[in-house]
């Protein structure tokens, strides 16, 4: 029995987390390039395979055969460990996201049902900043160091708003385990939380975009100022890992947003056809991803001090206010 359990976990971990996140991140680069191209009235990659669908595979193969450079002055151990520390959190974050309901004994609910799911998300998401900071420091390059420091400051600032945005759905979930992601999704069967928490959803999206270092908050890798920021000195597969982490996090953040605010796998006829659950979830994720790419195509990068001011003086008070009002209304109305 133990062996079967171990096998089950291994399959879940390997198939759902590793393969899905790696493939998802790879094809997310394709999705982003195509969408971004359309925003700029171009076509985008369409040569490798039908509609350019083999482009991510070609890119991966190219990166695998690139020379793997380690700078002479670099701290070798940390230099090698940094991309791993960055990529693992992005991969394991999906473990608590439920992808479908349990109906008629068919269990599409492969995810781990832990009673502190939201805390798990917060905790694991914060680990990635270590990887980026270590990568910046160990490269022995001033641009990398600047990128690492910026990433640290930015992520710490926006994590507060992100955590406070999570409080809304937790408060609204009327259950014994309101921190469990499963309970939050089940509570949204009749009404998505985005309707009750529009401000919370906006705060979450903004903080999430800042958390994953994407435009307009891509301060740690600002090309014009820092060449490539914390991954300036990285090449080959190590660079590919950073890339994977960045796009993996983008994917994961969209999954979390869809789960906590957009009703997760719920949609019409999910109770009759449980297989529709993952389809709905994926559709919501794609919409959020499109929104993130849209943001990148629209806004220029914020100046660094404005970014911090925005985080501390606007996002955090707004998030606190949102929590206070939500809590008061729940107490007054009676949840």
């Amino acid at each position, binding site marked *: 029995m133990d062996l079967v359990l171990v096998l089950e976990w291994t399959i879940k971990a390997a198939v759902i987390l590793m393969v899905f996140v790696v493939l998802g991140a790879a094809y997310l680069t394709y999705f982003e390039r195509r*969408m971004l191209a*359309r925003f700029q*009235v*171009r*076509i985008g990659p369409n040569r490798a395979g039908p509609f350019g669908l083999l482009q991510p595979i070609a890119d991966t193969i190219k990166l695998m055969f690139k020379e793997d450079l380690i700078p002479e002055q670099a701290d070798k151990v940390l230099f090698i460990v940094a991309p791993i520390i960055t990529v693992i959190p992005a991969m394991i974050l999906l473990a608590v996201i439920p992808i479908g309901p349990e109906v008629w004994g068919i269990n599409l609910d492969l995810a781990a049902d832990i009673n502190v799911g939201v805390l798990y998300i917060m905790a694991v998401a914060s680990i990635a900043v270590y990887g980026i900071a270590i990568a910046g420091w160990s490269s022995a390059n001033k641009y990398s160091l600047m990128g690492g420091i910026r990433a640290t400051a930015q992520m710490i600032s926006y994590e507060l708003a992100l955590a406070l945005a999570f409080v809304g759905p937790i408060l609204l979930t009327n259950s014994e385990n309101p921190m469990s992601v499963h309970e939050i999704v089940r509570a949204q069967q009749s009404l998505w939380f985005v309707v009750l928490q529009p401000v919370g959803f906006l705060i979450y999206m903004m903080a999430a975009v800042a958390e994953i270092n994407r435009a307009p908050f891509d301060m740690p890798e600002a090309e014009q100022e820092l060449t490539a920021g914390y991954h300036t000195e990285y090449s080959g597969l190590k660079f590919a890992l950073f890339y994977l982490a960045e796009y993996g996090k983008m994917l994961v953040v969209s999954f979390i947003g869809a789960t906590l605010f957009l009703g997760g796998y719920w949609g019409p006829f999910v109770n009759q056809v449980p297989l529709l659950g993952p389809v709905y979830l994926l559709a919501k994720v794609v919409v959020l991803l499109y929104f993130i790419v*849209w*943001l990148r195509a*629209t*806004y220029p990068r914020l100046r660094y001090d404005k970014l911090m001011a925005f985080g501390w003086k606007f996002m955090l008070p707004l998030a606190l206010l949102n929590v206070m009002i939500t809590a008061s209304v729940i107490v007054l109305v009676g949840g």
Partner: protein
Amino acid sequence: MNPFEFLRGLWTTFLNFLERPVTYQYPEIKRPVRERFRGRHELKRYDNGLEKCIGCALCAAACPADAIFVEAAENTDEDRFSPGERYASTYEINFLRCIFCGFCEDACPTEAIVLEHNYELSYTDRRSAIYGKDKLLVPVPEGGQPTPMKVEPGSFDRAVPEMEDPT
């Protein structure tokens, strides 16, 4: 920070998203170049098939990149390549050096070398970037004869043709 302006920005990019891409799918669809575009050189012929190039090497002298090499040889009425006394027995352009300035075209007294519209130049090694007469010379026009040709003595004595008055 006016939130309305943020939404207007998003709307602007979204309108762009709906537009038709302006991309030319290059190898399948080629944009025509301008009439005076300076692409790969061609060595021209007269209508009867004689080469215009007389091997004077003025193009090589004018070339700022030193990309052209010309070696001249004597014409005879038995083996005539071009009008006049001499023709280019070797004519080489190194396209790794050439900057496509068109000075050779300006220097040429017989309008033999012309920069045409071919811009699709690629080589796999340095040797193949040097184009000789075999590649530069245009094919014999219809009604002409290939060079060297046997001609009546005294019929092609003048090296530089009578030019039309440009005005």
